[in-house]
């Protein structure tokens, strides 16, 4: 069991029919393994298919093609067994606002079939995870956004699952709350829980994920540790040139001719693999005063591979 991946997706396709009858392929031949005990970051821009992938793992969305296995259970055939073993933290808050913090947790302790004896302890533990022990009797409608998100995460952990799906866990949160949640997720990873976390925050993936899968247009375009991905696709360093549009176009042309990838963002052109800039090109570019050198990032990788920004 330990050697089997916690999640496998093989050639998974999911199509939606729009109201006007046109078809959207939300997931387009996705193949992915999430090894047990690993925190895998699923990175991709809006509409890449991250949430659809998560929903297929719980069988709330049914794949049109392909095979899915979660913790040894084929999905959707044994989806209920798989769901019993995993925790899900959805992208959109679906806590029950009219219930108290504790009641929200209690309902899920029942749904996850915790035995009577363990239920109380599990709820107390989840309250601690959410840092809401003192607010257990507060109704959810009266919680702050950050507290709600912590409760949403804790609800998905009430049964101490071996696998947790986190769909954009920190989107729209202030830095303090985000840091709290990052601590929590790092803690899960350190305990050996398998985590599949979707995000479009590069920083989040770089901090928390052991490995990243970059997703675009419903498929995985690259996979590896953040370091590997950066080294392989973007090199060591990046040179950012600032300047007026015609100068930038000129720079782009020069660099491309030298066979190096570039990336345009607003008033800058970034030259990737800047460590490979040959002396001749360096001369041609000149070392004007508006050049910044920095380390390559996952963001650069993403742009190189898809032409899209993640965030």
């Amino acid at each position, binding site marked *: 069991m330990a050697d089997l991946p916690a999640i496998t997706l093989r050639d998974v396709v999911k199509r*939606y029919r729009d109201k006007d009858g046109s078809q959207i392929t939300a997931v387009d031949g996705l193949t992915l393994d999430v090894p047990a005990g690993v925190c895998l970051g699923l990175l991709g821009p809006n509409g890449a298919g991250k949430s659809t992938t998560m*929903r297929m793992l*719980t*069988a*709330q*969305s*049914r794949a049109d093609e392909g095979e899915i296995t979660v913790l*040894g259970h084929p999905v959707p055939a*044994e989806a*209920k*067994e798989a*769901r*019993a*073993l995993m925790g*899900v933290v*959805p992208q*959109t808050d*679906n*806590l*029950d*606002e*009219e*219930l*108290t913090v504790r*009641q929200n947790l*209690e*309902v*899920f302790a*029942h*749904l*996850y*079939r915790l035995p009577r004896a363990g239920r109380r302890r599990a709820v107390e533990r989840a309250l601690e995870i959410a840092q809401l022990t003192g607010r257990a009797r507060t109704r959810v409608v009266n919680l702050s956004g950050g507290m709600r998100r912590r409760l949403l995460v804790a*609800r998905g952990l009430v049964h101490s699952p071996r696998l947790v799906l986190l769909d954009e866990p920190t989107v729209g949160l202030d830095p303090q709350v985000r840091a709290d949640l990052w601590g929590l997720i790092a803690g899960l990873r350190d305990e050996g829980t398998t985590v599949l976390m979707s995000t479009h925050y590069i920083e989040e993936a770089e901090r928390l994920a052991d490995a990243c899968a970059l997703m675009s247009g419903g498929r995985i375009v690259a996979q590896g540790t953040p370091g590997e991905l950066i080294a392989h696709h973007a090199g060591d360093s990046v040179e950012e040139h600032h300047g007026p549009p015609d100068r930038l176009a000129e720079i782009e042309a020069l660099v491309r001719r030298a066979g190096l990838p570039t990336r345009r963002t607003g008033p800058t052109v970034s030259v990737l693999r800047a460590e490979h800039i040959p002396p001749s090109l360096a001369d041609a570019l000149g070392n004007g005063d508006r050049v910044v050198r920095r380390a390559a990032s996952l963001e650069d990788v993403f742009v190189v591979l898809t032409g899209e920004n993640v965030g």
Partner: protein
Amino acid sequence: MADTRLRRFEWAPVRGVWRHELALFRRYWPSSSFASTVEPTIYLLAFGFGFGSLLGHVAGYRYVDFVGTGVVATAALFTSVFPGMFNTYVRRVYQHSYEAVLAAPVDVHELVAGEASWIAVKSGMFSCVPLLVAMLFGLHPAAGMLAVPLFTTLTAVGFALFGVWASTVVPSINSFDYVITGILTPLFLVAGTFFPISGLPAWARTAAHVNPLYHCVELVRHAVFGFHPLADLGHLGTLALFAAVMAVLAVRGMRRRLID
């Protein structure tokens, strides 16, 4: 828990849903009990004494007793179909609660079973209140009355599930107006509640026989004034069939709306 196979239908999800309902009920019981018991009582008093003074007897019963038993059935209808429609619609569309529940080891049919059974039990109990009120106004107690909660609960199962199904069919919450005016009001009127169906034109009498509420009215009346064993088995069977058909439709509708 680890890797055992779960059964297709389990009680744990139903208990979880009940847990949720119980928490809400603790909070809202004064208003919800008030509405579900006082409204039928008002009907009973208004019709019972209003028309009662004109009519005296109807179909061999004192009119107050006739209405007192009939109102039990309409209470079972309204206290089940409205929560079935509105609660499930709001929870599915606005609160996304079912999205959360279905990410846990719960299947759609278990969710529907949990929601419908809670509504039905609550409705089945509340709708007996008019009978108690009628007793205050001279209805004679009878042993058969003990079976009334059973009949109202069975009726409420069917109508709760009808409400759940309707909530999956309507395009928006305002469209429930069509269901209420176009389906529920006729069902409510043509069931032998306030006047016997024997006075209706033939087509309406036929329609009444396919109205589940009519069968509930008959059962309640017979429970109070004396069973007609063969006919009553037929009434019970009809209500059970209604509930079964609605269960299939409700589960199918919810699956279509919740799983894509």
